[in-house]
């Protein structure tokens, strides 16, 4: 199938995992709405046969909140890029988490703005290079997992496109979860992030995901460079926003 992603891009792997998760869960396509924002990963919605809503930059979760509260029975999946979700859309992200509204937020973290040509994002991290950081970045990145936890998300996980079975498994759980579910997926952008930071080939970026991650609950390897923890960090059954809304309607005598 022709698509807009560059050769070597990891977004297709995330889409593949997501579709496997949806298939495993046996969900009705008429019951799924995919809401996306702007960016490379936000074009995912164009390749799936669900109800699909391609919105504006950073606001996917706000649109999704409207769809969900209006029709709580729908399963809503919101793929976002790191810039889309945590820079321009950061406020909607923390408030959706605080509400614990039943949405599945997938943050495809390639540590760069790909669509606009390789500018640094809130997840690029320190001492990295980007087309707007020719002398290196000087700001640390958010830790998406910690941010989501602190904001109140009741399901928080992280995986990579190297760990596809792990990723599929987490996405399946995230969709099934009742409440705000966040899955951060490290995905490679060889075209911009890789090329700017000494890893221009997709396989070496995927190798990096293998070498520089460790499963939650295990000891990280002692190697040079950062080590990123992957796995399921939070899975709590807490009352979800739309359920609370229904209850409050009962209080005023309406169901």
């Amino acid at each position, binding site marked *: 199938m022709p698509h807009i992603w560059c050769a070597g891009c990891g977004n297709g792997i995330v889409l593949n995992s997501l579709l496997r998760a949806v298939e495993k869960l046996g969900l009705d396509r008429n019951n799924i709405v995919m809401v996306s924002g702007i960016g490379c990963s936000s074009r995912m919605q164009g390749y799936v046969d669900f109800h699909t809503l391609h919105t504006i930059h950073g606001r996917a979760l*706000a649109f999704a909140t409207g769809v969900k509260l209006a029709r709580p029975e729908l399963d809503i999946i919101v793929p976002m890029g790191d810039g889309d979700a945590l820079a321009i859309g950061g406020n909607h992200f923390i408030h959706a988490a605080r509400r614990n509204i039943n949405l599945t937020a997938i943050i495809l973290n390639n540590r760069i703005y790909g669509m606009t040509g390789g500018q640094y994002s809130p997840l690029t991290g320190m001492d990295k290079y980007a087309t707007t950081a020719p002398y290196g970045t000087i700001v640390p990145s958010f830790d998406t997992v910690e941010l989501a936890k602190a904001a109140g998300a009741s399901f928080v996980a992280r995986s990579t496109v190297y760990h596809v079975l792990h990723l599929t498994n987490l996405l399946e759980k995230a969709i099934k979860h009742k409440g705000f579910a966040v899955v951060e997926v490290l995905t490679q952008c060889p075209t911009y992030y890789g090329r700017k930071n000494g890893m221009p080939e997709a396989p070496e970026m995927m190798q990096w995901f293998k070498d520089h991650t460790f499963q939650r609950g295990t000891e990280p390897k002692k190697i040079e460079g950062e080590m990123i923890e992957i796995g399921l960090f939070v899975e709590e059954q807490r009352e979800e926003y739309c359920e609370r809304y229904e209850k409050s309607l009962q209080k005023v005598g*309406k169901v």
Partner: protein
Amino acid sequence: MNNSEVKLLQGNEVCAEAAIYAGLEFFAGYPITPSTEIAETLSYKLPKKGGRFIQMEDEIGSICAIIGASLTGKKVMTATSGPGFSLMQEAIGYAIMTEIPCVIVNVQRGGPSTGLPTRVSQGDVMQARWGTHGDHAIIALTASNHQDIFTTTVEAFNLAETYRTPVILLYDEVLAHMREQVVIPEPGEIPLVERLITSVPKGTDYHPYFPREDGRLPMSDFGGVHRYNVTGLYHDMWGFPSDNPEITNELIHHLVHKIENRTINITRMKEYYLEDAETILISYGASARSAIHIMEDRRAVGMSIGMIELQTLWPFPEAEIRKKCAKAKYIVVVEMNMGQIIHQVKACVDHPGWVYLVNRVDGNLITPVDIKRILRIIQGKGI
């Protein structure tokens, strides 16, 4: 038996009551003076009707949430004032491009910036027209009294559904906070336009952007039997992105023409004594109240003066204004801004040089005396 109810309400409360009358099912908003009472009233009343109310994290979130909810088949609204209206502009453009019905109330206050939050202004007329980027058409309505706020708010929902477009209600602080008698009509008294839903059956291809013979685009609710794509990019009849020049050209013409070619059907105005009027006042919103007052006052002393109260600001009723002003010697636009609608009037009348501005921009309601003084100067009578 007549079941209409007489109430003494603030303009903001009237707007909320009218929205419920029109079938509002979903409201998202964010607190801002002087529109907050709309959200407060709906937070109380909408749940009683089984509707959904949500206070979002900002005005951007609010308009995005209502657009999302509208796609599921609900009638939706948000309400704000100047700064919030500025924040909403990008998403208003999205609703225009994707042709998703919604109603946006802007209770105008003094601007720019934080301006005069508790004071009156009509400074957002041009922002309502051109606030979002790119070529587009828009519908914006206004009112000068509470009974008209009621009918205009209902009309906004009807137009949004009829033309699949966002509709902007431009009220102002004076009307929003003033209390006035209003008759709440009984159900059915004002006709309601419900969403045009596709007749394409399940299992048959539905094209969300393929117009019927009459030009209208029937919708299919998200979560229903037709799965389709919605995007703010230029798109084909399937809703998928396209930069094909033919498709692009056709879509922008469709978006503009569906409203501007129907100006005569969309626009409403009130006319007073135009048959013999040498001087015609043109006004709208709260300033029209003062204009009506001074018009009656001057007629009582024998002046041949009439008035047009605009109830639709956009699309601007150019042909009608030109026709109605053809015999006037003085055309006096009364508005509370540095001159916004006056440019539209000048652009359409036969003698733009005979068009004068009477304005007040200090945060206070323009008074009949303010208008009288300027009228005397224009008519060569001195102060």
